[in-house]
């Protein structure tokens, strides 16, 4: 156990302050730098402005930029740059007023509503719903009429009315955090609500607060300049950004240049605030998609040493030296390194291993369904004599469903929530055959009966959210069987189900396989499932297959130290309430895998040789391979 900390976690990122993280990005530095500079210049306008913003010089009107007037002069001969700097002051003050009002309203209400919940939350949300629908502009106009063109009052009102949006988001965040288990733990350990709010809720809301504040600041600038553009702010000749655009509009045909400095500066300021907000969002929150918006060109495959000569065996599916990499924000990581295994028609191959070993990636790579940020970088997937890693989109599309089908771990997530079950199944049936609507419907009912779904007619009319997980997995199986595939890839098909339902689904899969003779690639982490359903096993560790053999041989005597150790870690293998033979340490995540044998840090048999070179798959008998150079030491054990 002493080496526990030597295996870093999946994302060994040190937490930094939001500010530091933002400044670490180029976008963050540029936008923050621009804003600081702008604010400083406006603040120091009386000191640094080249001219008096109100000083008219009718002999120098509408000049274009020059050494004397960097940004030219306006229709009364006033220096544009000076007017911009002075005008910026009122915009910035207005923005600060709006933001302060918004934060003062939104943060306490949002945190309280999210954390306390209940009736308080309902009332606040109801109110926010109404306020969200208030046409803010009219209220602002009324305020300006009543308060005699006071931009300050208008901006504070804008802040209060605009707070509902930020309030909702903070409330949502606070609510999610409240459900986090560490908050429950803190409550149980006797912390008061105030302590929990200040220590655990607010710090986690910081990110969204900053994001929303900067977006709102951008909006406030937009509104303030709009109002001054309409002449509703401080009366002329005072300089305001909006007012300057308005003045430029009067000389549109003679001096279009004048539109540029004022409008451009407004746009830049709003842009900087908006981009700053986006940057904070990116550094504080995870991306929505698993690919994080990253894409790689699939052409990045390494040139193979030798183009594999296609059919070397009789296997239906033959995966050879398959390597897969993902592009992540931390660079490219190799997730699979030379995965090889074979699967014959009618067999069930269990792909076993701990999480992160690459089982699911292997399953998806076989179907050429990696996420946009992943790519096969080497090796081949020979299915029925053809290399699928080199197949065209069209060829793949023709195979999917009819030759190879897939079911996955989350049956509910596998069904489109917006379509009825019958219609989804019917679409899949019709994409394999050219049946009429009615014929397809009959076939759907047949399939549903085949997977033992009760009352198919009724079930076909339901939406996925109206059925249980076990039924959803049966629907998924029906969909996969629609094209009578030769190979079914099942990625942890029963992991999310209760044991009794799991037993039913496994029994169903066994029956269907007997009846159709298809081969099954069954991804699982459960030795019991392997014992129940598989004819062969391939054990994966850290992106490689470490052993492949028929189940009898593997359960009889494991031929790889990892297989043996993983089997021994099961609580079934130790007498009640005695220590289990646990493997020390944890699976090294991609990017931190040791050279040589990847299991050597945790292997009881490891020796100096094990670190020297990459360990090849060693053939032990006709049907058995192992990625270990010291298997003979294992064989002597009982």
């Amino acid at each position: 156990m002493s080496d526990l900390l030597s295996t870093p976690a999946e994302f060994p990122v040190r937490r930094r302050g939001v500010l530091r993280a933002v400044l670490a990005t180029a976008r963050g530095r540029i936008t923050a730098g621009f804003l600081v500079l702008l604010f400083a210049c406006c603040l120091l306008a009386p000191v640094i402005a080249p001219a008096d913003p109100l000083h008219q010089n009718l002999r120098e009107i509408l000049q274009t930029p020059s050494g004397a007037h960097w940004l030219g002069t306006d229709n009364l001969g006033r220096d544009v740059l000076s007017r911009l700097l002075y005008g910026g002051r009122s915009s910035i003050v207005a923005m600060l007023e709006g933001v302060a009002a918004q934060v003062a309203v939104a943060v306490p209400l949002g945190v309280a509503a999210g954390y306390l919940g209940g009736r308080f939350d309902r009332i606040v949300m109801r109110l926010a719903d109404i306020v969200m629908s208030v046409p803010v502009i009219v209220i602002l106009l009324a305020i300006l009429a009543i308060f005699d063109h006071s931009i300050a009052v208008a901006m504070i009102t804008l802040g209060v009315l605009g707070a509902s949006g930020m309030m909702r988001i903070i409330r949502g965040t606070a609510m999610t955090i409240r459900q986090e288990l560490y908050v429950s733990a803190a409550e149980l350990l006797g912390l008061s609500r105030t302590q929990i709010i200040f220590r655990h809720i607010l710090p986690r809301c910081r990110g969204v607060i900053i994001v929303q504040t900067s977006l709102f600041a951008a909006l406030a600038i937009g509104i303030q300049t709009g109002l001054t553009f309409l002449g509703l702010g401080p009366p002329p000749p005072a300089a305001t950004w909006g007012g300057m655009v308005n003045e430029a509009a009067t000389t549109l045909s003679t001096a279009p240049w004048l539109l540029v400095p004022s409008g451009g500066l407004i746009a830049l300021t709003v842009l900087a605030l908006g981009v700053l907000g986006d940057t904070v969002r990116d550094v504080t929150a995870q991306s929505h998609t698993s690919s994080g918006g990253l894409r790689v060109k699939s052409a990045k495959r390494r040139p193979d040493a030798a183009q594999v000569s296609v059919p070397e065996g009789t296997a239906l599916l033959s995966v050879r030296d398959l390597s897969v990499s993902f592009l992540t924000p931390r660079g490219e990581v190799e997730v699979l390194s030379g995965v090889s295994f074979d699967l014959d028609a009618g067999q069930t191959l269990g792909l076993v291993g701990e999480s992160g070993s690459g089982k699911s990636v292997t399953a998806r790579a076989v179907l050429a369904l990696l996420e946009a940020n992943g790519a096969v970088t080497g090796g081949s997937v020979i299915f029925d004599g053809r290399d699928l890693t080199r197949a065209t989109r069209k060829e793949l599309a023709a195979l999917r469903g009819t030759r190879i089908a897939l079911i996955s771990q989350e049956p509910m997530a596998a069904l489109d929530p917006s379509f009825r079950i019958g219609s989804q199944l019917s679409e899949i049936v019709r994409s394999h055959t050219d049946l009429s609507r009615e014929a397809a419907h009959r076939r759907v009912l047949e399939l549903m009966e085949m997977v033992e779904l009760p009352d198919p007619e009724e079930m076909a009319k339901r939406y996925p959210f109206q059925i249980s997980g076990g039924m959803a997995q049966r629907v998924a199986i029906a969909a996969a069987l629609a094209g009578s595939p030769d190979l079914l890839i099942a990625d942890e098909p029963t992991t999310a189900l209760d044991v009794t339902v799991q037993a039913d689904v496994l029994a169903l899969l066994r029956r269907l396989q007997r009846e159709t003779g298809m081969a099954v690639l069954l991804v699982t982490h459960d030795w019991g499932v392997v014992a129940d359903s598989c004819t062969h096993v391939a054990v994966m560790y850290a992106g490689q297959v470490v052993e492949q053999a028929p189940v009898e041989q593997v359960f009889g005597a494991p031929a790889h130290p990892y297989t043996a150790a993983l089997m021994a870690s099961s609580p079934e293998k130790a007498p009640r309430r005695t220590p289990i033979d646990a493997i020390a340490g944890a699976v090294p995540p991609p990017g931190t895998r040791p050279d040589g044998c990847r299991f050597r840090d945790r292997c009881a048999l490891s020796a100096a040789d094990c670190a020297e070179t990459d360990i090849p798959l060693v053939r032990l008998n006709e049907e058995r391979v192992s990625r270990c150079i010291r298997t003979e030491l294992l064989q002597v054990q009982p």
Partner: protein
Amino acid sequence: MGRLIVHRVAMSIPLLLIVSLIIFGLEAVVPGDAASTILGQNATPESLAALRVQLGLNDPWIVRYGHWLGGALHADLGTSIISGVDVTSSLNSRLAVTLSLLVPTMLLSAVAGIALGFASAVRGGILGRFIDVVSLFGFAVPSFWIALILVTFFAVHLNLLPATGYQDFATSPTGWLKSIILPVLALSLQGITSVAKQTRDTVMEVLETDYVKFLRANGVSERSVRYRHVLRNAAIPVVTSLGLVSVGMLSGAVFIENVFVLPGLGSLATQATLDHDVPVILGVGVFFTLCVIAINLVIDFAYGLLNPKVRVS
């Protein structure tokens, strides 16, 4: 679904009350009133007092609010304190102009925004980057400024379209079309880009869901995956954001009407603000609130149609 609509209609009553109460209440607490606005700075105390009696300004504000509300229920929103014109009728005559600006803008934003966002999400690459940049641009550039740029270019330089003014559809359909093209374009830029960005994000998310993988893996054609399943599921959040974008467009309309000198509700409200003419602003507030309610109803209806959970229960 029915519940959703009923809920929305029920919420519109407090919404109208809140909007009118804010404006009315503020006016009541701030010193200075309609009488002093009408008579200006040289008014004598006697004439002020007389006018106050005439306008009923000596009643407590809640009583005046009650009067106003009673009138409003009968479509009587009072009279302008500057021109003495009946507010309801002057608003009615201007509503068509504002709707001529808003409705095409909303449609254009929805259609163009969704199409661009969808295309950039499924095609990625250059188009995706382009949409990202343009949407930042749309976010940052003030609509009144873009309007002026459009005027400089299309009206002043090319002389293709009128720079300002409005033509009635009934008198001249082509004149109407010409008079709204630039305003609609100027107002749409923000709408299109924010809808496009929202659509792009949502579609990218849907493209990586398990069910899309499942459909592809089991042989459903890419065409159907995209245009049936992805589009349909992405539509739900996009429609919600369309509602917010449309409500936000009301503010933009006020600026745009001023730039193009369109005789709509927004320019009326601006003039009223300059004149301190609160009854007119209040009237515009009521009309705008009704617009928001209409937008929300349409959005709720679309949401209900798209989301089976709402439809079934």
